[in-house]
């Protein structure tokens, strides 16, 4: 993979001078892919999930928990495990083709691991049952290749990343040349040259360090206005040390200053293969409005740098952590050297819709979309339609950040590295992925907004839910279109503390298709001319009314579980839609049982019966005996929290405070039920369990 290819990376001013070169070749490669694969049809549904882990050093008796920076050693151990490799599972380059054991990948953070299933999943319902088992297997294999005190955990962020003191093993002092962060060392990033270059060039392009500011949670003893006590205003080692003296760290915000604070987050991402480019474009559009809803539902990020935050999710922090826009692009200075003002970071919610769906109204599009007109023209000259050309021309407004000198020598149209350079550093909440070169893989769509969950049960539940909702969208021909800028607003809303309970999101009121009249019937022959008297027999309304009438503000409960009596809306609910899909499929009892457990988890998270991980973590901290209600998550609290998180997947959740509120009483009761039934009849029918 390009990720691991070695080469000579260009530093920022050099990379900038070659940006047009990369864009030009990227356009040519994209057109080559497009021409080759636009007619690809009838690809099966294949899908995969990605689980990202933090690796921590944890001992029950030692108060200090640290992040393990042994990513490379752990990956090597995984690669060298002969038996495992023989069975097909290890790091990609050593992996036998067709293996079905999990695959492990490096990530930006040197304390992170990513694991994917060895083979993509299909839509066979048995496959859906294997997802959770496979996730557990991945966790187990990862653990087996670590030191005894190391654990892979699935928290979105490490609560004390960047806190004063020691939070990595081994320890490195902060303020290195690449990141120039006053909180984290350069060694926090994967040492592969790509990653430090990415961080350094983003900083250089931007002209200062990234600013990741999160509002602090104001507890009863939090001083107010609150000044981040960990910020040092007196450093003079790097020019960027002046940032905080120039207002980078405002009052009442937790201040962070490096890419690691964002790209060190763990996410749950799902990628689908579409039947064809048309279906892929449709999925991209229809999943887009669901993004903020699933972000709020999976909220799991209430702590940064040792302080409780007043938000629940990671999204904006990652967005800020890779925001390479210059002051001109940000609108802080008049445009002189840059081409545009750019309203969003390269990590942000989607700005485009791309489907040829006739229901896509022009009113849904972003009226202020920035596109590179030249790129768009080149794509259209190459035969691409305007809608898709606009999408890619929007992605191409960015500069490539990491360029390897060796790649600039010759254009290779059998590869897509230059295209991918831009595509893969446009981190939008839905990604439309052309088929990779040299393989039979089809058009894919990646669903990226979800936060990683603490347990594999939850991660499987959300993964499977997303798969099922895509099937329901295609089967029922659902329509979730709202103006794309409303999705931006929804993404902001999703950040609010307990947004899942308290906030409302713009959502389409009627997701169903308008019935088309029978062809050849009196009313199907031609479009009626003139006005017809409204009557019970009039045709269903065609979608030409005001766009504002098509959507309403709804809570997560209403969107997921359906409108209640007394609501102004009649929204059926995403979960009933999925259940109706399942009702029409042949599903065996065991599978349905497990799916019911997953849907129940999501149903109850939506109606507030169960808590999000963000709420559980916040409550855990606030209920800790050492917590002083001053927003500070101390080392001891952090230690116990991490211990609880480890136990949740290890020893079981039985003794963990409020675990039931996170996972529900009968934490996957069905499987136990089914297994119990599968055993020979129990001797004593009346015995009751704990």
């Amino acid at each position, binding site marked *: 993979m390009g990720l691991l290819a070695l080469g000579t990376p260009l530093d920022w001013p050099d990379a900038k001078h070659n940006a047009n070169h990369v864009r030009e070749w990227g356009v040519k490669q994209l057109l080559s892919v497009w021409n080759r694969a636009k007619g690809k049809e009838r690809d099966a549904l294949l899908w995969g999930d990605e689980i990202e882990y933090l690796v921590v050093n944890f001992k029950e008796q030692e108060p200090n928990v640290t992040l393990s920076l042994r990513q490379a050693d752990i990956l090597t151990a995984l690669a060298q495990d002969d038996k495992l490799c023989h069975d097909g599972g290890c790091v990609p380059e050593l992996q036998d083709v067709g293996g079905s054991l999990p695959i492990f990948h490096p990530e930006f953070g040197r304390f992170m691991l990513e694991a994917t299933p060895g083979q993509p999943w299909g839509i066979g319902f048995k496959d859906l049952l294997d997802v959770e088992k496979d996730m557990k297997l991945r966790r187990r294999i990862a653990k087996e290749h670590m030191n005894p005190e190391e654990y892979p955990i699935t928290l979105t962020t490490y609560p004390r990343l960047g806190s004063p003191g020691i939070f990595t093993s081994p320890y490195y002092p902060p303020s290195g040349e690449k990141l120039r962060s006053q909180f984290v060392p350069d060694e926090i990033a994967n040492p592969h040259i790509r990653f430090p270059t990415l961080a350094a060039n983003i900083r250089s392009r931007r002209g200062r360090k990234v600013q990741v500011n999160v509002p602090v949670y104001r507890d009863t003893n939090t001083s107010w206005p609150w000044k981040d006590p960990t910020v040092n205003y007196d450093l003079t080692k790097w020019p960027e040390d002046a940032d905080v003296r120039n207002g980078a760290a405002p009052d009442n915000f937790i201040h962070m200053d490096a890419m690691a604070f964002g790209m060190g987050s763990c996410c749950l991402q799902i990628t689908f293969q579409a039947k064809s480019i048309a279906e892929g474009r449709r999925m991209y559009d229809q999943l887009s409005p669901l993004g903020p809803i699933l972000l709020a539902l999976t909220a799991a990020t209430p702590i940064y740098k040792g302080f409780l935050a007043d938000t629940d999710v990671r999204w904006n922090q990652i967005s800020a952590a890779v925001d390479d826009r210059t002051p001109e692009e940000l609108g802080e200075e008049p445009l002189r050297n840059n081409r545009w003002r750019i309203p969003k970071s390269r990590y942000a919610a989607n700005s485009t819709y791309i489907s040829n769906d006739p229901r896509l109204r022009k009113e849904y599009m972003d009226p202020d979309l920035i596109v590179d007109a030249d790129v768009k023209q080149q794509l259209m000259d190459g035969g691409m339609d305007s809608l898709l050309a606009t999408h890619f021309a929007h992605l191409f407004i960015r500069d490539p950040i990491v360029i390897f000198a060796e790649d600039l020598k010759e254009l290779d149209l059998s590869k897509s590295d230059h295209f991918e350079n831009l595509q893969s550093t446009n981190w939008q909440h839905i990604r439309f992925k052309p088929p990779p070169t040299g393989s039979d893989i089809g058009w894919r769509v990646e669903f990226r907004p979800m936060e990683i969950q603490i347990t594999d049960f939850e991660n499987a539940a959300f993964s499977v839910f997303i798969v099922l909702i895509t099937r329901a969208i295609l089967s029922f021909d659902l329509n979730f279109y709202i103006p794309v800028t409303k999705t931006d607003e929804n993404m902001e809303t999703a950040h609010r503390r307990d947004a899942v309970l308290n906030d409302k999101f713009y959502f389409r009121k009627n997701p169903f298709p308008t019935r088309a*009249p029978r062809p050849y*019937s009196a009313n199907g022959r031609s479009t009626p001319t003139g006005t017809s008297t409204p009557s*019970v027999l009039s045709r269903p309304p065609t979608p030409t009314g005001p766009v504002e009438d098509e959507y309403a503000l709804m809570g997560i409960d209403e969107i997921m579980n359906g409108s209640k009596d007394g609501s102004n809306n009649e929204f059926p609910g995403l979960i009933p839609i999925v259940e*109706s899909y399942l009702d029409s499929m042949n599903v065996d*009892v065991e599978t349905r*049982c497990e799916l019911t457990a997953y849907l129940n988890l999501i149903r109850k998270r939506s109606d507030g019966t169960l808590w999000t991980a963000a709420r559980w973590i916040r409550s855990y901290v606030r209920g800790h005996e050492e917590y002083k209600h001053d927003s500070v998550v101390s080392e001891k609290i952090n230690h116990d929290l991490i211990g609880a998180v480890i136990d949740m997947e290890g020893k079981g959740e039985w003794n963990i405070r409020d675990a039931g509120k996170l996972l529900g009483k009968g934490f996957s009761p069905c499987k136990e039920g089914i297994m119990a039934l599968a055993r020979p009849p129990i001797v004593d029918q009346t015995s009751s369990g704990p």
Partner: protein
Amino acid sequence: MTRLILSTSNIMTGGPSIIRKPGADRSNLELTNSLRSNFLAAQQDYSPAGGSKANSPTNYDEEESVSRPSPSVWTTRENSNFYIPTIDWSLSGLSEEPSQYDITVKLFYLPGVDVADRAQHTKDAIALVLKELRVPSIDLLIVSFPGMSFEGDCEWDADKKNASQGDDKQEIKSWSIVEDLYDQGLVKKLGLAEFGSEKLSRFLDKVRIPPKVDQVNIKDCCNVPPPLLQLAKRQQIELLVHNDCTNILPSGTLRELLGQGVRGAGVLSESKRGIDGMKGELTPEWVVKYTAVVRDRGVIENKGYFAVADLKE
């Protein structure tokens, strides 16, 4: 004698009628709602353009408050067959070739119908589905016999109660009808609905071609009665979940669907002065549900029902 052939056409794109209400258990709402909305759609489509009250026949029934086109506009009579609504067979078929699909058909034999007619009914039902989907065969045929259920406070109970339901002899006899379809290659796999452990094991002893599927409706699908689970495992019968009621189209419901009420289709008269309306004794005979799923994509492309009733005028 007239045979009423009711159809829903493809209900997948029919909007909310197919979406289950939260907490709703088994029901026939999907069938009745989608029949109703297809009647309404056909009335709209086949009315003269801009169809309004002025073009509609006047109805003299006092209870009548809705104007609708005459049934002759949107239904078709062919000999003794009365299609409600008219079916345009030129629109039937699937978008890809038949091999891409898993086609499941569930045939509901309704109560109060002479079991001697089941052979003909089965043949008719399968023929309609094959014609609608334009396929040479179906993958799974599930038959649902009248009088069966899987109900009780606990699933053990339900299983026991089930043992004495239905009519073993007739069910076994009827099974030979679908065995014939299997022999002819029209159906690749056979299945049953609502057979508990005792009934199923008695059934297995008597039939030539054993079912591969037993579709059960269990309140909490995690509580499958252990005897049934074990029997199914031993006999390699798949236990599938469903949500249908067994008596899916009671005659009262059908009468309301076709009648002159506000929610009726206006086909069936309830008073002597009905125009274009039919009168007589109405007996629902069978209902068939078909589902075509694109196999490797899990997308339901087509799903619908045919319901047939006998009208003695």
